């Protein structure tokens, strides 16, 4: 399996990276916290770590630490617009129930 970006998401990431002027890609991860147990991490990556699991999706490099990977495997990162609000969304097949806010989840 893999972790992928939708084309829209990749376009936005690429755009942000150009404006930011540095970075090698995107780092995804999970952490324990939040109202449903786990929370996503979504950050720019400036360095790759030796044990990182790497993917390339629509030209964007995605780095994931090995501990997070089982919880993210199969995820597609999408970019969505809801009314005036816009941003990234994790479409994660591992999630059993998410808290209403979408920021934390349970597997």
């Amino acid at each position, binding site marked *: 399996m893999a972790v992928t970006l939708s084309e829209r998401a990749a376009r936005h990431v690429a755009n*942000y990276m150009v404006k930011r002027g540095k970075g090698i890609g995107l780092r995804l991860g999970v952490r324990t916290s*939040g109202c449903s147990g786990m929370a996503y991490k*979504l*950050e720019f990556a400036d360095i790759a770590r030796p044990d990182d699991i790497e993917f390339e999706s629509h030209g964007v490099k995605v780095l994931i630490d090995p501990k997070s990977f089982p919880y993210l495997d199969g995820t597609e990162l999408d970019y969505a617009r809801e009314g*005036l609000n816009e941003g990234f969304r994790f479409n994660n097949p591992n999630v059993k129930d998410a808290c209403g806010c979408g920021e934390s989840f349970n597997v």
Partner: protein
Amino acid sequence: MALLQIAEPGESSAPHQHRLAVGIDLGTTNSLVATVRSGLAVVLSDELGRPLLPSVVRYMPDGQTEVGYDAQTRQALDPRNTIVSVKRFMGRGLADISNREGMPYRFDDAPGMLRLHTVAGLKSPVEVSAEILRNLRLRAEASLGGALLGAVITVPAYFDDAQRQATKDAARLAGLPVLRLLNEPTAAAIAYGLDNAAEGVYAVYDLGGGTFDISILRLSRGIFEVLATGGDSALGGDDFDHRIFCWILETAGLKPLSVEDARVLLTRAREAKEYLTFHGVAPISARLDSGEIVDLTLSTEIFSEITQTLVAKTMQPVKKALRDAGLSVADVKGVVMVGGATRMPQVQRAVGDFFRQDPLNNLDPDKVVAIGAAKQANLLAGNGAAGDDWLLLDVIPLSLGIETMGGLVEKIIPRNATIPTARAQEFTTFRDGQTALAVHVVQGERELVGDCRSLARFELRGIPPMVAGAARVRVTFQVDADGLLAVTAREKTSGVEASIVVKPSYGLSDDEIAEMLKDSLQHVRDDALQRALREAQIDAERLLEAVRAALVGDGELLSADERARIDADIGKLQAATRGDNRRQIVLAMDDLEADTKDFAARRMDKSIRRAFAGRRISELDSDTTIAHTGEAT
């Protein structure tokens, strides 16, 4: 479901802890809200994709309001209840408003700030501005998907305390926490990243809808200092519209127009002006109520010609501001263009010619202030990338210092010092054998401790006994980027140290700060006289203390005659010290000093002999008074 943004490495916030912060340009003509999204500053548009919100509020009989484009459209139909350019009224009394007759409003002269009669009742400019801010807050919350931590709101650099306070009050009314007010030119400079650029002097040329502002800033160590401001509060893009309007009337040979026709033509004029920024000619056509048809073409050349005097008019304040700052054109490192009206090519050209360099104009001039404010808000909310924190432009609102002898304040960090900062000053003991020092930390502008705010007290103990003035106590004030103050006192010869951490602004509301500042200005003169008197009294006490100690220890070195004269001098000086005549104190001190001169010499000989004999001086009753060496470090 919340949509996520990309964080800087290692800075993903915990769920429900996104620190949503925005920058707001509360403009005379247009207002905007911007935020930093995934590291990029963007202006937030409304549902129809429009980034600007016209700063127009219309009150309706049922108390409801319309804000922005809706209000603007109905301005001609309901001029009295449609408030435009309310920024001109913020923090102003009726007497401050010059061209009231030209305005359709019914004013009420309330104390402090004027009020406006509307169909929905009496409204303060603060309430009107709050409507605009509330609209932008709702837009931001809808765009960002949550409640805001706060906003950085921009104000003109020349805004005084009353105008700034009014802006803050409007935000409070709108349910918007203010992270900070930021000067508009500074925000523009930040938007251009000048805070990361070479140090030097920058000019910010801001031509808005109805106002012109020029600011001269100096950037040093990431801090912008406003050197001079100037401008014309009745000159802006609207005047260019009016010139085109007059040209239409003349060229088309129109008779006096109805209010409605005039409004239509003014709108056409503005459209033509904005069109000419991107095209060589602009068509102007309208069908008037009178049945006449206007069908004209305005060229860039004619437009430049009929507005030449307006452009030239902006250069006078520019020259004056440079003069006020004591600078010439050659000193200006960069020129920032701000305000929608600076899009006009003839303005760009004139500014470039004047400063002999191409102005910075690659950002949208009507968005640049909001963008800069958003960047600052992002940093203040703690969302910035590591290493960016030095950008914090915060200053200390009131001076910090310590109490010295006689209840005087010795300022260690002056008001408006930028933080983080650290300053140290050396103090010494007041009495022989003094082994402890009381450090009383105070905040305020006044000279006497009683008039300032007490922040903390602590004691430095274990100073080895020495003669008065021999100990070297270094008191260091350190304020970190959060405004947290740490005070350390260290005696140099022995190395004993004591410290305390205080939060200086704790419990001091902005109102109190404003009040205290006003207070200090009214009292500067008073305070200076008071201070001189107190200093004389302290010097006298010090002298009396020294003489008394000497008399106890070495009284036998004096003849009865000498002793009587000295006792008389002491009595006179004591009496003078209790009064408030500084001159009398100084004269009495001179007498005592003259009459104890020989005595001092004799004591010196004796103490040298004693020192060589290796005898120890017993510790005197120690108290903790702090004295200053008069030497800043």
